[in-house]
Structures are given as C-alpha cells and as structure tokens.
C-alpha cells in the first residue's frame, strides 16, 4: 500500500511541477497568442 500512496503523491508532484517546467522550456499559452509588449504579466 505504501507504493500505491507513493505513486499517487508522485502523480500530484508531477502535476504541480508541470507548469513551471513547461515555462522553463519556454512554452506558455500566453506567449503563443500575444506578444510580450501587450501582456499584463
């Protein structure tokens, strides 16, 4: 059962890390649809 719980936690950790990692690789949906000069972030 420990392995099962560890895998569930790992899935959540992967989900949490996905957005910053994608950002690090240079992909964000905002960048796909607007240039930097008109974004609010």
């Amino acid at each position: 059962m420990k392995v099962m719980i560890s895998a569930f936690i790992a899935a959540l950790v992967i989900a949490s890390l996905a957005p910053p990692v994608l950002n690090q690789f240079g992909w964000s949906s905002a960048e796909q649809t607007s240039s930097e000069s008109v974004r609010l972030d």
Partner: protein
Amino acid sequence: MKRKLLGAVVLALATLVFNPVWAQEAPAVDRTSTGGAQTLEDILARQKQLEIDESFRSENLGNPANAAPISGRLGTLGGRSDSDIYRAIRYNKIDPSTQARGPAADVLIQDGGIPWYKLREGPVITYGGSAILAIIALLAVFYFVRGRIKIKGGPAGTTVERFKAIERFGHWLLAGSFVALAITGLITLMGRSFLIPVMGPEAFATLAAGSKWLHNNIAWAFMLGLVMTFFMWVAHNIPNKLDWQWLKVGGGIFTNAHPSARKFNAGQKIVFWTVMLLGFSVSLSGLSLLFPFEIPMFAKTFGVVNTVLGTDLPTVLTPHEEMQYANIWHSIVAFVLMVAIIAHIYIGSIGMEGAFDAMGNGKVDLEWARQHHDLWVAEVEAKQGKGGSS
C-alpha cells in the same frame, strides 16, 4: 473486396458521427423582410445542419462600383460594408490580411463550431455516459449471478512475489492519474449539462477551473506511467498459442475451470494492449489539445486512412478543425478506456478473491497463483530452485 467493404463501413460510420442529422434540404425561405439578408429561419436551419442554398449571401459581397463618390457624404466607406467583407472572408472570395498574430490567426471565420458543439453535447455525452452506466450495471449483474471468484480450496497461507515495487509504482502512477483524468474529464465534458443545474454556475466555475488545471497537468504522470508499464510488461504480453486456449474457455470465468497461463493471461493481455494503444492515442490527442494549434495530426492521419482504406476523408483541415477532431477523438477514446478500466478494476478487486494483493503489497497467495497463473508459478519455482528470484 473486404478492404473496400471495410472502407465503406468506416466512411458510413464517419458520416453518421459527423452528421448527426442527415443532410436534408431546408424549406425555401422568404427574405423580403430583411432585404435579401439572412433571416432567423436561415440561422435555425444551419444549426439543424440542414442543407441551405448559401448563394444569397455567398454572392452578396458588395460592389465597389456602387461606391458613393469620395466627395459624397457617405463616400469614404466605399462600395463594401463590413458585412460584405466578412461574407467574402467566410466564402474565401478575397485574400485578407490581419494584424492579429498567433498559430491560427489567419483563420478569421470557421464554420465547424456548431456541429462540433452539438456532437460533443449530444452523441458523445449520450453514448459515452450510457456505455459507462451499462458496464457498471453489467458488472453488478455479473457479481450477483456469478458471485466473487474464490480461491478453490481456500488460500494456501504462503505467498509468492508477483510484482516488484517499481512495477506497482508504475501501475499506480498510471491508475491514479487515469482516475483523476477520468473524473476531471467527465466534469469538463458533462458539467454544463449535469452539474450547473445542481450546483449553479459560480460553484461550477471554480470546480471546472480546478478540474482543467488537474486534467492538463496530471496528464504527464499518466504518460510517464504508460511508458513505464509498457517497458516493464511488454515482453510478458506478446500473444501466443496459450492465449487462444485461454480465450476458448473464456478464462474459465463461467465454468470454474482454470486454463493455464504464464505471468499474464489472455484477458490481462487484452487489458494491457487496450491501455497501451488507447492510452497512446488519447495521449497524442491530449497533447494536441494541450498545445493548441501546435500539434495538428488529423489531416495527416486522414491521409493515411484514405490511402489504406480508400476513403475520402478530408486531408486539408483548418487549425480549428484539427482541434475539434482532436477533442471529439479524445473523448471517444477516453470513454472506451474508462469502460475497459472499470471492468479491470472490478476483476482486480471485488470480483476475484486474492487478486488485489498482486498490486496491493506485491505478494499473492500461492494457491491463487497456481490456479490463475500455473505456468508462471512453475517458472518462479524453477528459478528459486536455481537460486534466482521471481
């Protein structure tokens, strides 16, 4: 001959799926009240996907020759109104330019939205939801008729290692993320129809935003679990003659017989390949949706299908059409996977005594193993006899 027949069947099915209402001609519309412009009847007929003679607007694109002279009071607009120009864009009669930038910025009008929306809200929800309810009902009936499959003669009391920790980790990574994806996917697909009436739009908006975040991001865990389990188990899941013997007696599920099997029996191999093939497909369409307009794949896929089956599926698709196909395909494949996995969860838990232990703590009762995987037990015992491990 068979290939042609198969092609015809696929084409007919595709036509049925993407044309929920057979193309019927719309009744003639009197447009005198709008001066020839479209009426409410035209809009409603289009939403019902009836066949409309579009020439009343596809040919009505204005006429620059009719422009009032620049010296006139209304002369600066020229001979085309905004409506004329947008009609010309819709019917590809002019070559416009735009200052908007983005992967799909050069598509200003795309007509596929309503058929996609109706397909998604109609047949996809109806048939997909019905399939899930049907498999749950079927399993409930099966449980009450057949009962729990027990270990004949009771457990031996000694165990044998069935799955190593890394195998169980890969399985649960895949399983946990799949359940999360299934629930959040159903919320996203069906929430508008079933949850908003119950919980209201404000509460649903929060739930939907959370579901979308989880669905988009936990998908990576699913893909990692899929890759892990594929490489760990593919060698044990190659079909062989033994599987045919197993299938001929239905795995002994109705007869209490226990056909011989190695590490995975034919039923488990079917689940494995279903998960791998559909999991790969749902991941590809999911990536296409996750990175909008970046990974179009349906035009090329249709091209291959046309070459193989001789069908006439469209091979030129706009970016939005690609997304619409990806969305519908993603939903259909996900529903098939859900149905298969519900059955897998049943047989791996309440349906069979001793089955859950295999993934629970990795060790199964020796008698259970002998009854369901006799050849695998023999292999393990032979290895142990030589000082090896399972």
